[in-house]
């Protein structure tokens, strides 16, 4: 008995040590990258300490615009998280092999993006010390009444489901065994509706408020999904190229081009839904047009968001054309330009461009123009850096497990032949 415990402890120590070695030991660029992220994350943390001490008065949010940059970023990252499903569907339903290899990386991106989304909500809370009130016990979660309660539940469920899938797949690789299909396939299939519901429920948070005509349109949730299927894969295309260059990670061009093609379709739907929204408000021309007017052309001389949204539109349309034409889609220079354009475009459209006009004009008709304060930008950049750090470390672990650099001493290296360079 004692012997057995000792052996297990020894094995566990070996596992942790080899994992930490691949996660934290790297080349020069790895250290430069991680140092920059650490500095950013610490700056953000310092900003948060100030915000805790002074209160949310250090942001530019006020009574009129009571949600701002944090909730904007929250919305964007929920979208990125939901898009991981895009890799899972073709991989497991249609057995598209090239994409199957990268599914785990997409799932890790989902884990990271959900973590970031949760961090963005957390820094937006006036009383973070009371966040435990959002549990059914010992707190008093308002379920099913409050859609925010639903959102908290699906976000956490999605986070843990993806963690379980990734951990299980990693565990099997470590011991050199094929994953048990009867166990993993149901979990993966479950992650598909959950990814869609994560984004739908987040859309419903805004959508359900009759007080805010800009959000109170049934097109909101479908548009959320369409735009998520643009930004998430665009981010993945860039990440995969970096990994391919920097680490022993193989991905075929065909998988990348397939993703770009999917983005083109999703962007087509997104732009169509945007036009449908614009038509409805402008043609009926009621007072509910005001927030949209503020966004696209300015209202009563207030127009701070106008350059933002037009940047987003130009970027999205350009990205769409680049990804629609096979020639530019399959050229890595134009492909990457397209990715950057689309990520930025959707970040504006699903962030500031969606949240802020909901509050302008406010419910009593006042206009208060909002732009994030320095502290808000600092804290948000800190969360971004923390997310990039989490992803970098997770990806290093997964790739090491995939290629057998971290493996159980009893697993033969030949098991990993297919995945090594």
């Amino acid at each position, binding site marked *: 008995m004692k012997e057995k415990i000792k052996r297990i402890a020894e094995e566990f120590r070996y596992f942790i040590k080899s994992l930490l070695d691949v996660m934290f030991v790297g080349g020069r660029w790895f250290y430069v990258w991680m140092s920059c992220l650490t500095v950013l994350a610490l700056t953000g943390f310092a900003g948060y*300490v100030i915000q*805790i001490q*002074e*209160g*949310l*008065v250090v*942001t530019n*949010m*006020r*009574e*009129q615009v*009571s*949600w701002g940059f944090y909730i904007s970023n929250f919305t964007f990252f929920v979208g990125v998280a939901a898009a991981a499903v895009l890799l899972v569907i073709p991989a497991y339903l249609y057995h598209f092999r090239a994409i199957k290899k990268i599914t785990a990386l997409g799932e890790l991106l989902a884990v990271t993006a959900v973590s970031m989304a949760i961090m963005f*909500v957390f820094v*937006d*809370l*006036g*009383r*973070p*010390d*009371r*966040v*435990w*009130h*959002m549990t059914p*016990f*010992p*707190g*008093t*979660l*308002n379920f099913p*009444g*409050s*859609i*925010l*309660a639903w959102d*908290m539940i699906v976000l956490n469920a999605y986070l843990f489901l993806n963690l379980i899938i990734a951990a299980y797949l990693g565990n099997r690789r470590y011991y050199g065994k094929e994953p048990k299909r009867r166990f993993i396939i149901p979990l993966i299939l479950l992650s598909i509706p959950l990814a869609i519901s994560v984004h739908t429920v987040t859309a419903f*948070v*805004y959508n359900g*408020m*009759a*007080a*805010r005509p800009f959000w109170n349109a049934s097109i909101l949730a479908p548009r959320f999904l369409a735009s998520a299927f643009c930004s998430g894969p665009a981010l993945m295309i860039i990440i995969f190229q970096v990994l391919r260059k920097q680490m022993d990670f193989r991905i075929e061009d065909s998988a990348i081009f397939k993703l770009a093609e999917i983005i083109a379709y999703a962007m087509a739907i997104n732009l169509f839904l945007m036009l449908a929204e614009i038509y409805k408000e402008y043609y009926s021309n009621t*007072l509910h047009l*005001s927030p949209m007017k503020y966004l696209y052309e300015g209202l009563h001389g207030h127009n701070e968001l106008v350059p933002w949204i037009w940047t987003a539109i130009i970027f999205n349309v350009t990205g769409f054309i680049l990804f629609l034409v096979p020639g530019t889609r399959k050229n890595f220079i134009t492909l990457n330009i397209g990715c950057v354009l689309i990520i930025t475009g959707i970040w504006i459209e699903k962030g500031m461009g969606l949240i802020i006009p*909901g*509050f302008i*004009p*406010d*419910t*009593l*008709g*006042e206009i208060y123009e909002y732009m994030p304060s320095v502290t808000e930008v600092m804290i948000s950049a800190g969360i971004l850096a923390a997310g990039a750090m989490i992803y970098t470390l997770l990806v290093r672990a997964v790739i090491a497990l995939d290629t057998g650099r971290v493996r159980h001493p009893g697993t033969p290296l030949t098991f990993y032949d297919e995945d090594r360079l």
Partner: protein
Amino acid sequence: MKKRFSRRDFIKITAVGAGAAVIPGCSNTITWEEFFQTNFKEMSPQEIKHLLAGLEEKYTKEYGVKFTVKATPAREGVVFGYALDLSRCIGCRRCVYACVKENNPSRDVQIQWIRVLRMKKGEFNLEESEHYYDPDKVPEDGYFYVPVQCQQCENPPCVKACPVKATWKDPDGITVIDYNWCIGCRFCMAACPYRARKFNWTKPLIPKDEMNTDTHYLGNRPRMKGVVEKCTFCVQRSRDGRYPACVEACPVGARKFGNLLDKESEIRYILENFRTFRLKEDLNTQPKFFYFFSLGWG
């Protein structure tokens, strides 16, 4: 006799370890007992008594004046209603100042529960209204005034929005907030169609000599940084049979208040004999705050 394992015990046990890292940063004045406090609606009468005594002591110490904190519950057979006579209102904002004096909102950053909108005669468009009118004399020619505060909806979107049940509608129709339970997510502010809800963006600042020390747990007791607050029809007064401060302060008698269930009340007389309307009726919030006109001109 076996002691039941209560919610309170559970929180104490689990949070002692887990909470240690989080709490000290959040506020300089928060105590362990406050941190572990349960939702007001789930407290026993003993727990409430203990809580109120503790708060009285805390506020008395903090502000150097003697405080009373009560938690008078809603009276049976009472549902409060409010009516505002737009034909008499002169836009003097005395209601606003009386409310501030009564309800202990922050003076710096300024929080006011009542907003008076100035409208051009001939239209009723909130977007065209002026919130910051500042003439030498009111009323001004060509304008009328619309004071807006919490409309005490029968169907309140804010209550539905709250993820932690920190706000609810009491049986007398008043929507109240447990300031000790609110997590400050501000979803209720986004959901409110009347901009009734205000947030404490920083620690509220109130000069000691301006503090109203006759307070209610769900009403005008001092608030803390990071929580939402709003008009409660002066729950600390109305549940004791007094008028809200704004009703008393109005120099032209434009503000009427009473029990909607009492057939003899002034509010019922107004509803039965005048033409009334409510703000944003199309949202089906069903406010218990009515606007009416007693004069045909002026």
